[in-house]
C-alpha cells in the first residue's frame, strides 16, 4: 500500500489504542509527536484486592471501558472519526486476553473507517514515549527499558531499527521491586511504595549483592539480589532482631539501580552513543532517575526520561511508535492482524 496524504493536507492524525495489561487507554497523536489527548483508565484499584493483575478480570474491564475511553480521546482532541488518518494498536506482547480487546476494537474501527491499521510492539511504544517528551530527540541512542515485564538494554539505531543487547535472565526490574515490596508488606503495586519508603532509609546500611554476570554481558539478573533481601529478613527474624524496613528498601533499590545505570553507561560508551533514553514504569523510580542523571553528567551523555504519565502504560506512546512504522512504509497490517502474548522487540 502507498502512503496516502493526510486528510487535512498537513499532518497525520493517529488514533492509538493500548490494552496490554491493566490500563485501558486511547490517544490522539499528530505526526507521532504532538499529543492532542491521552486518556488512561486504570484498573489498579480493582486488582489491588488480588495482589496482582488478574487476566480474566482485566479483560472484562477492558471490554467495558474501551469504547467510552476512545470517545473521550476524540472529544478531548476535538476531532471525529472522519479526521483519523490511521489507527495504531498494541498487539504484542502482553496479557493475551487484554490485548485481544484493543486489537479487535482497532481492527473493527479501521475496517469501518477504511483507514490503515498498525500493530505496535508495546516495548517499542515505551521507547517512543520519549519522542513525545523530547521533540528534538532522534535516533541513534541507547535505551534502557525497565518495566513490570521487561529489563532490556537496546541500541536504537533508527526509528524502526532496534538491537537488543541485554535482557533480564530472571525477574524484570519492576517484578523484583514488586516482590521485595510484598515481603516488606507494602501493598500493591509495590514499586512506587518501595521508592517512597526508601527515601527515609540509608542506601548503604546493608550491602546487597550487585549481579553483573560475565564481564562483557549486558544481561541483568535480579533474583539473586531479591533472594539476598529475603535471606536478610529471615535471618533477622530468626534472631528476633529488629529490622529497619526503610534501610532495607533503600539498600535493595541502590543495588538494583547501580547495575542498571552502570550497564547503560557502558553500552552507550561502547557504541559511541551520546544519549541514553529511559522507558517503562520503573523509569519513574526516583533513585534511578537521580543516579542516572549524575552518571550521565559525569560522562557527557544526554539523558532523556519521559514524565511519569508517559512512563507507565498509555496509548500516546503507541501513537508515536505507530507513526514511525507508518512513515517507514508499513502502511497497514492486514485485517487478519492477530495478538501475541510474547514477541521479539
Amino acid at each position, binding site marked *: 500500500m502507498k502512503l496516502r496524504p493526510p486528510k487535512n493536507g498537513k499532518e497525520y492524525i493517529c488514533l492509538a489504542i493500548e490494552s496490554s495489561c491493566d490500563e485501558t487507554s486511547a490517544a490522539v497523536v499528530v505526526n507521532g509527536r504532538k499529543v492532542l489527548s491521552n486518556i488512561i483508565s486504570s484498573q489498579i484499584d480493582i486488582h489491588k484486592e488480588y495482589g496482582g493483575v488478574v487476566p480474566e*478480570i482485566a479483560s472484562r474491564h477492558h*471490554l467495558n471501558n474501551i469504547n467510552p475511553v476512545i470517545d473521550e480521546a476524540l472529544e478531548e482532541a476535538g476531532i471525529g472519526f472522519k479526521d483519523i488518518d490511521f489507527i495504531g494498536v498494541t498487539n504484542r506482547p502482553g496479557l493475551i486476553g487484554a490485548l485481544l480487546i484493543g*486489537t*479487535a476494537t482497532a*481492527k*473493527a*474501527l479501521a475496517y469501518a473507517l477504511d483507514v490503515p491499521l498498525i500493530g505496535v510492539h508495546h516495548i517499542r511504544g515505551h521507547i517512543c514515549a520519549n519522542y513525545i517528551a523530547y521533540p528534538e530527540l532522534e535516533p541513534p541512542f541507547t535505551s534502557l527499558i525497565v518495566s513490570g515485564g521487561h529489563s532490556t538494554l537496546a541500541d536504537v539505531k533508527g526509528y524502526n531499527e532496534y538491537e537488543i543487547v541485554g535482557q533480564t535472565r530472571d525477574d524484570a526490574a519492576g517484578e523484583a521491586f514488586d516482590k521485595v515490596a510484598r515481603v516488606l508488606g507494602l501493598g500493591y503495586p509495590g514499586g512506587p511504595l518501595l521508592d517512597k519508603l526508601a527515601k527515609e532509609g540509608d542506601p548503604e546500611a546493608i550491602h546487597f549483592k550487585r549481579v553483573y554476570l560475565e564481564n562483557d554481558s549486558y544481561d541483568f539478573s535480579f533474583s539473586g539480589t531479591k533472594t539476598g533481601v529475603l535471606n536478610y529478613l529471615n535471618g533477622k527474624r530468626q534472631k528476633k532482631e529488629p529490622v529497619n524496613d526503610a534501610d532495607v528498601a533503600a539498600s535493595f533499590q541502590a543495588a538494583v539501580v547501580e547495575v542498571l545505570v552502570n550497564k547503560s553507561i557502558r553500552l552507550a560508551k561502547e557504541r559511541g552513543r551520546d544519549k541514553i533514553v529511559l522507558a517503562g514504569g520503573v523509569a519513574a523510580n526516583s533513585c534511578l532517575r537521580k543516579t542516572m542523571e549524575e552518571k550521565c553528567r559525569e560522562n557527557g551523555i544526554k539523558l532523556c526520561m519521559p514524565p511519569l504519565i508517559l512512563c507507565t502504560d498509555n496509548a500516546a506512546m503507541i501513537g508515536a511508535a505507530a507513526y514511525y512504522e507508518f512513515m517507514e512504509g508499513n502502511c497497514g497490517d492486514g*485485517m487478519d492482524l*492477530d495478538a501475541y502474548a510474547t514477541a521479539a522487540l
Partner: protein
Amino acid sequence: MNILAIETTAAFASAAIIDKDEFVHEVISEGNFTHLQNLIPLVDQVLEECDMKLSQIEGIAVSRGPGSFTGIRIGMSTAKALAQALNVKVAEVPTLKAMALNFYNFGGIVCPILDARRNQVYSAAYTFEEDEQVELYPEGAYFLDEVIEKLAGKGPVIFIGDGVSNDAIRNGLEGAIGREAFFAASDKRIQTAEMVAVLGLEIHKAGGAVSYVEAQPEYLRKSEAERNLELKKCGQK
C-alpha cells in the same frame, strides 16, 4: 433493515447478514479458535457475497454469550466498535436462545448444552409453540444432574451444542433420559451466526437494541479469582 450478525462464542467464528427481505446469508470460518484473525475478513466476505457495503448495515447483532469467555469478548468488542464507527445499535443476542431456533421444528424440547468445565454446563431449554419460543428454564451454569432433573419425563429432548461432543456429558444424558434423548448431528450442533441474525432482527424491530456503550456480554459466571476471593471472605466471617 440490514443487520450484520456475529457469532464467536464457540470454536468456529461466523458472520451473517439478514437483509430487508429477511433473506439470510452466512459464512463460517474454517479456523478453530482463530476468531481475532478471522472475524473481520469474514465480515468482509459476507458483505461482498451479499453485494453490500458496510455503510448499508443498519444494525449489529452479536451472540452475547454464554460460551468461551475469550470468544464472547472478541465478538462483543468487534460488534461494539463497528456500531460505534457506523453509528448504529447493537442487539445483544442470547446465544442459547438463538442456537435453539435452528431446531424449532423438532417437535419436543430443544436443549442447548455448552461444556462449561468444572463439571458444569451452560444450558437452557425451549419448546416451540406456534410462532413462540417458550423457555422451560432460564439460561444458567448448571450441574448435569440439575439439567436431567428438569428434563426427565418431559418427553423427547434434542440436545445441541458442543457439550454433546463431550462423552461424559452425552453418556450422562443418555443414561438418565434414555430413548427420549436425541442428539444433534455433529455438523449441526454448533452455534452459527444465521440464527443470531434472525433473533437480532427481531430484537432490533422490537426496539430492544442498545448503544455500543450499553451492550454487555453474558458470561453466566464470575471469574475464578472473584469466586475464590468471595469464598475466602465467607470463610473469614
